[in-house]
Structure formats: structure tokens, C-alpha cells
């Protein structure tokens, strides 16, 4: 069967599965809509969390980033996993004990303030909306490359599928779909990796293959280092991202941001107990780790395969442009791969020197998707990768949309404006806000704003500088009052936004970047994307300062904190 038919078959089958789950898992109460009834098994929730967490960025982009940044790409590996340790120990169990439906609801109860709730909702919506735009783009790109339909048709199909299961089933429908999506995603990611690892090193386990010898007896990583340095690129295993200080702060920002992202925290409201919340975080990270420890192998092997396909030790033997393989031609069509014959010899030179390099564009995002083709794997493997990429984008989009919808219907409508509405009405409103959130996300998918590229960093920055500190202080400090928490959140966001905007432009419009996007102006040499940890530090400092000068917390809140710190109900 040809690739096209196989891909339609695989993607069609997975979509049919998601729709069937939607009809089976229809939500009948608000508890089912917001937290899937609170009865999800910790392992099942772990799997759903892994799918919720691993987005198009993890599935498609991350290995590509590592392939080109080498050691410097480690910030994403450590940053996007280490946050779960913080989540498991500092947030999830206590928030589960409190038993609220949303993150802003906890903040509202703990800081006895509707203002705090509204501030939290604003942070949540900015963080989640920016994040969901990236997923929408991922859906459109995956469709247009693999099914050769237009970007718009692909996006519309994706939106329709999410609409059915998210509006009908809420968290319940999303949870069971995410479990299915995790399974599809992990199969799609590991199968090509196993094939390629076996072909290169004879070891089918990619995590071990990466540390093994190749057929010629040279260690794979030594080979990668040798090939890239000979061609004038930085050494793969030691190239740092700007500086070690920057890597340190970047990793910390991603970890704190991960722990503070509402769509991830919310997943821990669906398990039955505090004990289950702790364990479930472990399962979630285990399921994530399967992909995250495979990614470095995919990255190094893809880089090696790409370079050795093009460049030969003797330059005169390099790949001739006329003989380029079909994957090369396919990706050229998308504009993500570009060749320019600078010396007119008809051969391709791919080097680290800008003046002689003829591969003028190699988009990082094509690495995972093109990898199976570069390695010459069978068509059914490539078809699975397409279904996996779509599963990754859809599962994360659904989780984010629920976070947005529930903060509107539960926090704003029910919590602030109309506390008197009945449960039945609230369920209806939650469905309407879900539909509204999907419409907004879809709109941005069709008209990606200029700032789309920089926005995921913004999401992490906001989560790290506002939500994480507010939650952590709410649990670990009995004295933190509403004035402190609100001042902390606002100044944390303020500092982070100011730093990002002054270097990247207001709302990412380049011409308005009043300090310019250049390293000499960076504070301690820290790149804007890595600034969340500094914002969090400011948040903590301001919160404690303001707290020391304002009224202490009321008695009933102190009791509430005592209560969330222990699992038992007495």
C-alpha cells in the first residue's frame, strides 16, 4: 500500500477511536465535566497526564532542538521533566486534598479574595491561550504534510474532533481519549527510534544504543562529535546553550513553569485521594520519561544520518543535488529544507561555515518527521508517526481548552459573577465556554498572530512567575496573606513581561523592542525565554515584603491550611 493510503487508514482509525470514546464517556455532572468525577486510577491519570503534557513541541520539535543544540538542548530534557518532582512534592497532594475543581478556585479560597481569583484566571488564560495556538499550528502542519490536504482542511478536521469529545465529555471524555492518545504517541515515537538504533548500533534500545559502539567499533556519540566538528559545527556533546549560567536559569524556569501550568495541575484533581495524587505524579513522569529519554537518541542519530547522507569525508564524493533522495524533494516542497549551489559544482556541501554552507535552510521541526524517511524505514512506520504527531497535538489542545473553559464557567461565571446558578446551568455554561474556547483557538490557528513563535516561552514564564509561587506559598506559608499573594503575582508577571517585551518587542512586535534582542543587554546573560525563574524570585520577595506590612490571615484560613497539609479527613 502506498504511504498516502496507509496514513489515511491509521489517522482515520485513531480518529474513529477518539469519537467512540466521546460517546461512551459523556459527562452528566459538573464534577464529571471538570474533574472526571474524581475517580481516575493513578496509573490511568499518569498516562493521561503524559499525553496532556507532551505536545506537538515535545513530539515534533524537541528532538530537532537537541539534534542541533546537542548538549545545550539538555535544558528542555531536564526542565520539562524535573518540574514533576516539584509538582509531586510541593503542589499536587495538597491541592488534591483541598478538592477544588480549578486552580484559581484554590487561590480564591486560600487567599480569601475574589481579586486573587481574577488575577489567577487572567494568568491562566494568557498562559493557556498562547500555548494552544502552537498546538493548532501543529495539527495543521501535520495534516498538510502527511495527508496532502490544505492546512485549513487539516485544522478544521482536528478542531471538529476535539469539539466532539471535549464538549460532550469534558474532563471525563478528555481523560479517556488522552490515555488512548498516549499509547498511540509512544508507539509512534519509539518504533522508528528502535529501528534506527538497531540499524546503527545493533542495540534495539535507543537509550542504550546512544551509548554504544557503531558497526565500525567507534562509539556513536564520538562519531557524531567527529562528523560535526570536521564540518565546522560545534562539538555535539559539549556545546552549551550560551553559557552555563543561562542553562542553569533556563532549566530552573522550565521546571517551575512546568509545575505551575494549570492544565497539568488540574489533572491531579481527577484522582481519588492524596496518596493517589503522589503516586500518579510518579506514573506520569515515568510515561513521559519513556519519550524524553528516547528523544536524545533520536536527536543524535537523526543528526548523524542527515550529515552522513549528504557529506562524505572526501568532499568530491558529496551527495549530488541531482541524486537527492525523495524525502529531500518532499521537504523542499514545504520550504522547510532549502539548497543553494553556491560553488556551482552540483554537489551538496553542508557545513558549519555560513559562507560555504549550501543547506541554507534545515528547519529543526522536520527532524522527527523526516527521520524515518532519511533512515529508509517502511511506509507503515511513517504513517504511524503521522498519527502520533496528531495525537500529541490533539491531547494537549484538549487539556488546555478544558483549563480555559473551566476557568471561565467555574471561576468567572459561577465564582465571581453568578454564584447562585444551579449545577445544571453551570454544566451547560461549561459546555458553551468549551465551545467558545475552541472557536477562539481555531481562529488563531487560521490566523496565526505574528507573536505565535515566542508565545510558548511566555506561557512558561507566566506560570513560573505567577501561578507556581502563589500556590507554593499558599501551602507552605501559613502567614502569607491576600495582599502579599496578589502583589507577588502582579510583580512576578510584571517583571517577566517587561523583560520579554523589552527584548522581543511588545506583544512580540519586533520594532517595539526598546532594548534590542542582543546579548550585551541581557541581565546576567540570561535569554528572555529563561526569565521565569527570576520573575518567580521577585514574586516571592515582593509577597513576603508586602505580607510583613499588612493584616495577618484570618483564623479560618489558617485552619484550612492545617487541613490541606494532612491527607486524613478529621
Amino acid at each position, binding site marked *: 500500500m502506498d504511504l498516502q493510503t496507509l496514513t489515511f487508514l491509521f489517522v482515520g482509525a485513531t480518529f474513529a477511536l477518539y469519537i467512540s470514546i466521546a460517546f461512551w464517556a459523556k459527562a452528566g455532572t459538573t464534577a464529571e465535566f471538570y474533574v472526571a468525577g474524581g475517580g481516575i486510577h493513578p496509573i490511568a491519570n499518569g498516562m493521561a497526564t503524559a499525553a496532556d503534557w507532551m505536545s506537538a513541541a515535545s513530539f515534533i520539535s524537541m528532538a530537532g532542538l537537541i539534534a542541533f543544540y546537542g548538549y545545550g538542548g539538555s535544558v528542555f530534557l531536564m526542565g520539562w521533566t524535573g518540574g514533576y518532582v516539584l509538582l509531586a512534592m510541593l503542589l499536587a497532594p495538597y491541592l488534591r486534598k483541598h478538592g477544588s475543581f480549578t486552580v484559581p478556585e484554590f487561590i480564591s479560597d486560600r487567599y480569601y479574595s475574589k481579586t486573587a481569583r481574577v488575577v489567577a484566571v487572567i494568568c491562566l488564560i494568557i498562559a493557556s491561550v498562547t500555548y494552544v495556538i502552537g498546538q493548532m499550528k501543529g495539527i495543521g502542519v501535520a495534516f498538510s504534510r502527511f495527508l496532502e490536504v490544505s492546512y485549513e482542511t487539516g485544522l478544521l478536521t482536528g478542531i471538529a474532533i476535539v469539539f466532539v469529545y471535549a464538549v460532550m465529555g469534558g474532563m471525563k471524555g478528555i481523560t479517556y481519549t488522552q490515555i488512548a492518545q498516549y499509547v498511540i504517541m509512544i508507539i509512534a515515537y519509539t518504533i522508528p527510534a528502535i529501528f534506527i538504533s538497531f540499524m546503527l548500533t545493533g542495540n534495539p534500545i535507543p537509550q542504550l544504543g546512544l551509548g*554504544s559502539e557503531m558497526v565500525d567499533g567507534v562509539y556513536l*556519540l564520538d562519531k557524531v562529535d567527529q562528523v560535526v566538528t570536521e564540518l565546522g559545527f560545534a562539538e555535539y556533546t559539549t556545546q552549551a546553550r550560551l553559557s552555563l549560567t543561562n542553562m542553569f536559569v533556563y532549566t530552573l524556569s522550565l521546571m517551575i513553569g512546568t509545575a505551575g501550568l494549570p492544565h497539568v495541575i488540574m489533572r491531579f484533581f481527577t484522582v481519588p485521594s492524596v496518596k493517589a495524587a503522589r503516586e500518579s505524579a510518579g506514573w506520569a513522569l515515568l510515561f513521559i520519561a519513556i519519550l524524553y529519554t528516547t528523544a536524545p537518541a533520536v536527536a543524535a542519530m537523526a543528526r548523524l544520518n542527515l550529515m552522513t547522507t549528504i557529506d562524505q569525508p572526501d568532499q568530491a564524493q558529496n551527495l549530488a543535488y541531482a541524486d537527492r533522495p525523495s524525502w529531500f524533494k518532499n521537504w523542499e516542497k514545504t520550504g522547510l529544507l532549502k539548497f543553494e549551489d553556491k560553488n556551482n559544482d552540483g554537489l551538496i556541501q553542508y557545513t558549519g561555515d555560513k559562507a560555504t554552507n549550501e543547506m541554507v535552510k534545515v528547519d529543526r521541526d522536520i527532524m522527527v518527521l523526516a527521520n524515518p524517511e532519511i533512515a529508509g524505514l517502511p511506509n507503515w512506520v511513517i504513517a504511524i508517526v503521522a498519527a502520533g504527531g496528531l495525537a500529541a497535538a490533539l491531547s494537549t489542545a484538549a487539556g488546555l481548552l478544558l483549563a480555559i473553559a473551566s476557568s471561565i464557567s467555574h471561576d468567572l461565571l459561577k465564582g465571581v459573577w453568578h454564584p447562585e446558578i444551579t449545577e445544571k446551568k453551570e454544566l451547560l455554561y461549561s459546555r458553551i465556554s468549551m465551545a467558545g474556547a475552541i472557536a477562539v483557538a481555531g481562529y488563531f490557528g487560521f490566523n496565526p498572530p505574528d507573536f505565535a513563535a515566542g508565545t510558548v516561552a511566555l506561557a512558561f514564564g507566566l506560570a513560573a512567575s505567577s501561578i507556581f509561587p502563589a500556590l507554593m506559598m499558599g501551602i507552605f506559608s501559613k502567614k502569607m496573606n491576600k495582599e502579599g499573594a496578589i502583589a507577588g503575582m502582579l510583580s512576578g508577571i510584571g517583571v517577566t513581561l517587561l523583560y520579554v517585551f523589552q527584548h522581543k518587542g511588545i506583544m512580540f512586535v519586533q520594532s517595539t523592542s526598546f532594548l534590542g534582542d542582543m546579548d550585551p543587554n541581557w541581565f546576567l546573560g540570561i535569554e528572555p525565554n529563561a526569565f521565569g525563574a527570576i520573575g518567580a524570585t521577585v514574586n516571592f520577595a515582593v509577597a513576603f515584603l508586602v505580607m510583613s506590612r499588612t493584616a495577618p490571615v484570618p483564623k479560618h484560613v489558617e485552619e484550612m491550611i492545617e487541613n490541606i497539609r494532612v491527607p486524613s479527613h478529621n
Partner: protein
Amino acid sequence: MVKNSDYWKSNIALIVKCLSVWFVVSYLFGIVFVDVLNLVKLGGYKLGFWFAQQGSIYTFVILIFYYAKKMNQIDEQFNMHEK
């Protein structure tokens, strides 16, 4: 309430212990001392590189399960477990 505060102290002590390991494997082994550790090799991996791209992640998973298990014991010890 005395019982509650003892329980909470045990929890904090355990968190501090776990987060120290979390800090050492990622920030120290994976970033600050990466060059020194890279002098040692683990198969084809430079050790610092291995911690940054593999070892820290494995440690994180073990840490969470360890914390969950220890907390279950502490819950029982202080009779704080869910009934």
C-alpha cells in the same frame, strides 16, 4: 495539633532530602560540574552529558516514587492516612 506539626516536619524533612538529590543530579552533575564529569565515560556517554540527557530523568522518576512510598509510611506512623 502537635501531631499535625510533627507530621508536617517529617514531610518537610523528606522533601528537603529528595529535592537535594533533584538539585545535585540536574543542576550540579548536569550543568555546573558537567566538564569535570565529562572526563569520565559511561560506555560511549560522557558522564556529565549522560546526567544531563538521561541520568537526571531516571533519578527524577525514582525520587517521586520514593517520596510517595515514604509519605505513605509517614501517613501511617502519624495516623494521618485517608480512611
